[in-house]
């Protein structure tokens, strides 16, 4: 790279077929109980605003993480599918990235995840429309957060304003914190040291997070499981989240 030339990202994320990626997550749907603790933890960690009943009914709620379930069969043999927490899949080839006209939705080369750069975002919502997983949420308003609720805001995470798109960041603030800590101590980040809020809280231990490029990590081991599937795999988005289905 030549000095002082700004490299404009191409309209195609830089990924190679079969590339492992850096950070990844495995969610065991056989263990998930649908308890929503991850949803609450995510909201508390990431300063996610609440929108109230009316806007929630319009589908404007700001969950970065939702727990899906679908009905199957007819009474009395009716079932729900396994509860399935769905968050940003941090695709290696993310459909949200090439459609952003202002490069607010970009791929982090360093962390190999999808970034949403709030200060670039102008709110076109193209990214959300192009996301096959429906995990991007838009700030339709400056959501009210009456005092003193603002005391709870996490200073490590930006408070977003109206007109900004946002989504799961894999708790990048925790990644940075752990990396910084490790660097200060002159060592590598250990497996299990970076834990996003959802994985940390999960009472069923259904969510595991770690380095996909480390074949020894717990998440890599689990991702190799025969039960492992990726959501909408056929789209070729190279998701970094693997679901363990079945028993």
């Amino acid at each position: 790279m030549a000095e002082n030339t700004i490299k404009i990202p191409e309209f195609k994320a830089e990924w190679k077929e079969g590339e492992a990626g850096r950070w990844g997550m495995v969610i065991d749907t056989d263990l998930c109980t649908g308890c929503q603790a991850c949803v609450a933890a995510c909201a508390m960690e990431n300063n996610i605003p609440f929108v109230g009943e009316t806007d929630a009914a319009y589908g404007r709620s700001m969950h970065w993480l939702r727990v899906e379930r679908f009905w199957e069969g007819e009474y009395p043999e009716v079932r729900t599918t396994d509860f399935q927490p769905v968050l940003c899949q941090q695709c290696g080839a993310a459909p949200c990235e090439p459609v952003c006209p202002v490069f607010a939705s970009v791929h982090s080369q360093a962390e190999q995840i999808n970034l949403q750069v709030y200060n670039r975002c102008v709110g076109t919502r193209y990214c959300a429309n192009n996301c096959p997983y429906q995990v991007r949420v838009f700030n339709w308003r400056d959501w009210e957060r009456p005092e003193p609720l603002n005391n709870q805001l996490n200073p490590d995470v930006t408070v977003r304003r109206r007109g900004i798109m946002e989504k799961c960041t894999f708790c990048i603030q925790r990644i940075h914190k752990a990396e910084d800590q490790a660097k200060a101590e002159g060592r590598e980040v250990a497996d299990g040291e970076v834990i996003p809020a959802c994985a940390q809280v999960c009472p069923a231990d259904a969510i595991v997070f770690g380095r996909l490029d480390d074949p020894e990590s717990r998440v890599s081991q689990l991702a190799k499981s025969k039960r492992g599937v990726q959501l909408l795999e056929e789209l070729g988005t190279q998701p970094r989240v693997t679901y363990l289905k079945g028993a």
Partner: protein
Amino acid sequence: MLHKLLELSKQPLFRVGVLVLVLAVFSGLGYGLYTTQTTPPQPIQFPHSRHVALGIQCLYCHPGAWRQASAGLPSTQKCWGCHQQTPLTQTSVELQKLAAYAENGMSIPWVPVAMLPDFVHFNHRPHIAAGLNCENCHGEVGKMGIYENPQVLNMGWCLTCHRERTQDDPEKRIKLLDCGTCHY
């Protein structure tokens, strides 16, 4: 309406009025712009130069810089720890304010000058660890009264340095030019 206005515009008093209005708007604009570029008054006219001249290290009052994101501001008690022993505290008018804060157990509402927007997450620690000294970014604080930024703290300024310092290390370069390193 238009007709009336035309007629009015012939009156000298009206012309003076319009002139006054235009002047008022522009001076207001200028003042507004000016105020955005000046820092509001600090609660105490703190002379950095004096403290540095006494040989006090930056990290004595801002110890966070070498181990965490925020350098931190000293607590009132920390200021008072030294100042209650110095004779100047009794005589200086400015220091009476400090005495009042300390005696009432109140915090001093400093106005941060080296300030970044909410969507930027700056961390002092790696910068110090990379061998930078405070004055590399903050200038000659020892010659300043109230601190002033020696340059505009914008992204171009950050990236210039990040580029220069990572010329020979492509891996580090990726990390230090990544959006996600500062924006999340």
